[in-house]
């Protein structure tokens, strides 16, 4: 009997643990949502953005590029809930497809900027000495430029397209991110477990990767959420200035630029709905980021 029970026991126990863990996670998430309702709203808005972006072709009632005959500058109606633009294109469909671009930019530029900042910050903070000084002088010089100006310069140099916009936004966010992470690394590297790892002979890279980085993840996650929102706004700003996504790409920034300004008095919906989409997503990201900070930052825990 014992031999027939023994092989199944760990699996049963594991299943039991998993179920208990799932239930516990769900309960914790629910508790968290109750405690941070705004954060839950933010997460909900982000979830909607992801859903809309993922299923854009299925959700959009029209081709976002198609000019519909006789549909120029139609005000919002049942057929076109957000109206049409000056080229007879359905605005709802363009905003739905625009979510893909915003998500793409937010995720890739945000991730690239955060990872870049993490690497620079950890190397600078952990190495210290002249390496830190050298890196920080470069960071200082980059921070002398406002982020958008830096991104504008890079896009103007590299050429206006979405890939270059992502690179420019990411590079523009590296200095600020790295400065925060460097500070976190300074405090973590003095911890006993880091000293213990060093004393056991762990090489520097191992200490950084396995002991420093995991313990600075709280600020990294918060910075990532900020970078996500900043990237979306930066893309909209660059596109608005004609240096981001190019027409006829249905980017929210492109939709806010040229034609919507020209037709502001006759067709305000051309500017209102893309503006609303940007505002909602940024609002969602900000309140989610705030909640994340409250949860992850030990100093802010009740």
């Amino acid at each position: 009997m014992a031999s027939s029970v023994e092989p199944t026991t760990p699996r049963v126990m594991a299943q039991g643990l998993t179920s208990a863990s799932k239930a516990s996670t769900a309960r914790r998430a629910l508790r968290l949502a109750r405690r941070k309702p705004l954060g839950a709203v933010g997460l909900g808005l982000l979830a909607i953005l992801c859903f809309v972006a993922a299923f854009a072709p299925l959700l959009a009632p029209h081709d976002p590029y198609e000019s519909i005959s006789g549909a120029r500058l139609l005000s919002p109606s049942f057929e076109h809930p957000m109206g049409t633009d000056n080229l007879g294109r359905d605005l709802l469909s363009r905003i739905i497809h625009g979510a893909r671009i915003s998500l793409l930019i937010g995720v890739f530029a945000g991730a690239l900027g955060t990872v870049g900042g993490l690497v620079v910050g950890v190397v600078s903070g952990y190495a210290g000495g002249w390496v830190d000084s050298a890196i920080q002088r470069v960071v200082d010089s980059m921070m002398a430029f406002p982020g958008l100006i830096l991104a504008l310069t890079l896009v103007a140099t590299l050429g206006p397209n979405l890939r270059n916009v992502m690179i420019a936004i990411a590079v523009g966010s590296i200095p600020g991110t790295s400065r925060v992470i460097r500070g976190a690394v300074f405090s973590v590297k003095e911890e006993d477990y880091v000293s213990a790892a060093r004393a056991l002979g762990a090489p520097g890279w191992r200490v950084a990767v396995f002991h420093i980085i995991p313990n600075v993840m709280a600020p990294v996650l918060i910075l990532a959420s900020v970078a996500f929102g900043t990237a979306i706004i930066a893309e909209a700003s660059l596109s608005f200035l004609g240096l981001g996504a190019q027409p006829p790409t249905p980017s929210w920034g492109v939709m806010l630029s040229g034609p919507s300004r020209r037709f502001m008095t006759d067709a305000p919906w051309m500017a209102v709905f893309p503006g609303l989409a940007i505002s909602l997503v940024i609002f969602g990201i900000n309140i989610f980021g705030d909640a994340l900070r409250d949860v992850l930052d030990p100093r802010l825990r009740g």
Partner: protein
Amino acid sequence: MSNYWTKRRLSRRTVLRGSALSGVSLLGAALIGCGGDDDSPSGGTSTATGGGSGVVTTGTPAPSADANVKRGGEVILAGGDLQRLDFQATISTPTQNASSLVYSRLVRYDPYTGANDYGIIPDLAESWEVESDRITFHLKQGVKWPNVDPVNGREFVASDVQYSYERVATDGPEWVHAYKMDPISSIEAPDDYTVVMNLSRPSAGLLSDLASGQGMGLVPRELVEADGDLDTRWIGTGPFMLDRWEQGNRIRFVRNPDYHEDGYPYVDAIEWRFITDSSTNLANFIAGQLSYYALPSLEALRQVQSSTDAMVQTFANLGGTHKMFNVREDGPNPALADVRVRQAIDYALNRQDILDFVLGGDGNIAGPVMPVGYGDWSLSPDEIAELHPENLDEARALITAAGADGLTIEHDYGNTSAFSEDEAPIMQQQLARVGIRLELLPRERTVYLQAQVDGNFSFQGIGMGGYPDPDNFLYPVFHSTGSKNYGGVDDPELDARIEEQQGILEHEERVEFIKNLDRDWKDYLYRIYTVYPNTHQAWSSQIVNPFQPKGWDWRGLQAVAFK
């Protein structure tokens, strides 16, 4: 579906009717401005070319001033700043427009003929004879330069004309209007009141070029010799004198008491404020701060009509954005050297959709070189529609025949052009239907212009103004030696036809020749013309004798007065 826009949009029929009536409405607006008095300043006009070789053509004298018109007041306009004052050495439009108030020419356009009718009336020449090998001008006698140093009120004479046009014809890149002097082999002044221009070739468009406000003003030799150029002072025989030019702020003119057309000008001063922002100008016009406003859009037109009792004039715009091919065999896209590919693109376009989407129906469809509304020179809208129909099957067949299936074309345009920004995506959709992929490349203006000059483009949107003579739409652009032949056109047959029309002095014969060239344009198609917008301009309801500025000539302001 009914909504704000569709309730108000203009149908094509309405627009065409509006265009057809524009000439009438323009004149009507002028008469309305006259308050019922028969004080229209318009006199009879002659066309630029009338009569064949050796036939005398004389302009009708300009009308005399009306003693009953109220005098005084100051007309306020808005526009861009001048690049420099020396109008003979710049193409700056504000410079040309402003100089037309100070400097007279031999002949000028009648500002009160129908829209886009460049009828010519006398200015400093009271009559002229056009022949195949020369034009002889007989000057008005007793015309004085202003009584200021260095001209000190001396009489205007034939040698002034000789000097002015020899200066325009100076060799060098600065002398941007020299090409207009190309047909002239020499200028003689047999006496003080006669100017003879000997021609190296017959030139049907020369008289019209001389009437243009672009670089053709007559200047005194003493002024240029004293100052070195015209950048310091302006001294002319026009209706106004330059009072002050405050760069970045305004330019102001005051009445010339010695003006040679008695009784003019009616107003005391003209001020051009350097404001180019259209919304600011719209607000200023609605607030009564401007006497004139060139409406940039239908939306602005609606606001003016709903907020003011301004006089609005509508006419076909001869300027627009052409689509220029680079047809060089070794160009970036050699497929475009094949006329069948260009024809396929032409067939794939639905011009009515472009007109509706891009201009809200407020304009005319195009196709041939000469725009609709261009006086006698235009084909009718119906004929244009027949010559340039949408035919997707034909387009696909032509692409296949040319071996260009799967063709990709880069379409670049200046990123500040609102028209191209709207038109390009529509063309992209339309060409996709026949398997042509149009890549849109909005370019920063200097990059775009450099690509144009270098011939480093495939298919470029290029803005062109309207011109008084049809030769301006042909020779500079399509002749193998033309100064604006950026697309590398080198077609001996077309060269010959362009040269031939230059030599036809008989107006009707030339009109028919140009129309036949337009009918055959499908065999050339070095540029594609899709649509032209309408132009709307508004004059304050307080203004009498509103006019249509044309050919860089604002001399009509001499007859403008306040009620």
